[in-house]
């Protein structure tokens, strides 16, 4: 209650520039409009989309005409599902009918090809990992690219996610917000125990598919993004039974009890378990060991958003002017983007 209403600089919340929602009667509507503004703001411009597409096209053409004519160069991950944030990597995979490109020698062949043709800089060849990859920066677009070999599970996942996005309004918006929220806190890197893109998508998709108002068609999710975002943090911050419950697809969204499906991870221990819809014996989130901190950060997000609502509810119209609700949990610190272009 004693917190002063500060007029935070617009640089930190650039999406509120020229977008004032302080006269909304309901704070949930204000937050909904702010979420839409933010999504607009971070969505790639035409120039960014073209730079990414051209980088992929160029690499595909070079590799399939001048190196390995029998291979396919595919993209998966956030690039393929259109769920990427500015500056995200592009995930690429080389596949073939024979499956021969999983041999280590091809890894080195490709990295020297990229080097000699100036197709990549800062090339790193990671051969010892469980999934060997080449990481590099595409010099014209400056985009980071990861290339893996003969792994098709990412392609199947991307196809599935594209289907979910078509049939689940609100999924794209909430996923991008949660992604940005976790990215700012460096909790989105699976190699450091964070939540990967697919896990984030599953959390949001399960939430939207089980919500009482949505399973009864009593609300349109796109009109209610604000309250749904707060309720997402409420579910996974406060209430979800991480010790007992598995997120699952059988064939549609459901829960499973850990004690009955112990193969998906240690039974009745505090850990996120998401059954891979393409491989029921695989737990997508098995390496997200930092889930305790992630849960804590979701509680923090819930508290920041709801406290801001209580504060603004009590504030005068003048005090509400220029305020941001979403700014409590999201920062955008990249270079300023052109709104009109978005």
């Amino acid at each position, binding site marked *: 209650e004693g917190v002063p209403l500060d007029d935070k600089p617009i640089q930190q919340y650039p999406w509120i520039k020229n977008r004032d929602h302080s006269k909304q009667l309901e704070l949930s509507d204000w937050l909904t409009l702010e979420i839409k503004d933010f999504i607009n703001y971070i969505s790639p411009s035409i120039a960014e989309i073209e730079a990414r597409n051209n980088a992929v096209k160029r690499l595909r053409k070079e590799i399939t005409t001048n190196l390995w004519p029998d291979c396919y160069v595919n993209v998966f991950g956030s690039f393929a599902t259109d769920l990427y944030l500015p500056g995200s990597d592009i995930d690429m995979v080389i596949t073939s009918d024979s499956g021969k490109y999983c041999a280590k020698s091809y890894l080195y062949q490709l990295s020297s090809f990229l080097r000699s043709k100036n197709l990549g800089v800062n090339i790193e060849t990671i051969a010892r990992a469980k999934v060997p990859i080449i990481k590099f920066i595409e010099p014209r677009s400056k985009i980071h690219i990861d290339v893996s070999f003969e792994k098709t599970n990412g392609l199947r996942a991307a196809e599935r996610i594209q289907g979910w996005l078509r049939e689940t309004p609100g999924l794209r918006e909430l996923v991008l917000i949660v992604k940005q929220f976790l990215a700012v806190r460096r909790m989105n890197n699976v190699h450091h125990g964070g939540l990967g893109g697919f896990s984030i998508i599953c959390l949001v998709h399960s939430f939207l598919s089980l919500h009482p108002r949505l399973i009864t068609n009593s609300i349109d999710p796109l009109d209610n993004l604000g309250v749904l975002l707060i309720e997402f943090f409420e579910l996974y911050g406060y209430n979800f039974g991480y010790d007992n*419950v598995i997120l699952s697809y059988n064939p549609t969204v459901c829960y499973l009890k850990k004690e009955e499906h112990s193969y998906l991870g240690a039974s009745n221990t505090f850990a996120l378990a998401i059954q891979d819809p393409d491989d029921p014996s695989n737990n997508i989130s098995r390496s997200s060991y930092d889930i305790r901190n992630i849960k804590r950060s979701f509680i923090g997000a819930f508290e920041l958003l709801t406290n801001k609502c209580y504060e603004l509810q009590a504030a005068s119209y003048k005090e509400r002017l220029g305020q941001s609700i979403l700014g409590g949990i999201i920062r955008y610190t990249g270079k300023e983007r052109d709104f009109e272009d978005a």
Partner: protein
Amino acid sequence: NNCPDKGKMRNSYCRVCDSRAHSSDRCPTIWRCYITIKTKDKIGMPQIWCYNCGSKGHFGDECLQQRSSRTPNLNGSSFSGGNLPKSLRSQYYS
């Protein structure tokens, strides 16, 4: 021990929901506010899953099993029979 918030909590009362879990100026109805769709079609009971025990047939807020999460749910959440349309609520609670 001199925490003013604690004292406030004990005396809090919300006129909106007739609850002692929070005060009126911190009432969840301030943000838990939906733009609803008006439909005349009668809807059947959907499949409901419990976030606490993973069972089918009830929401986590109404779970009879011991609460798994160590963080309390003082005000109730969106995953409750109270968040179903009126026409389904009596069926759900019976």
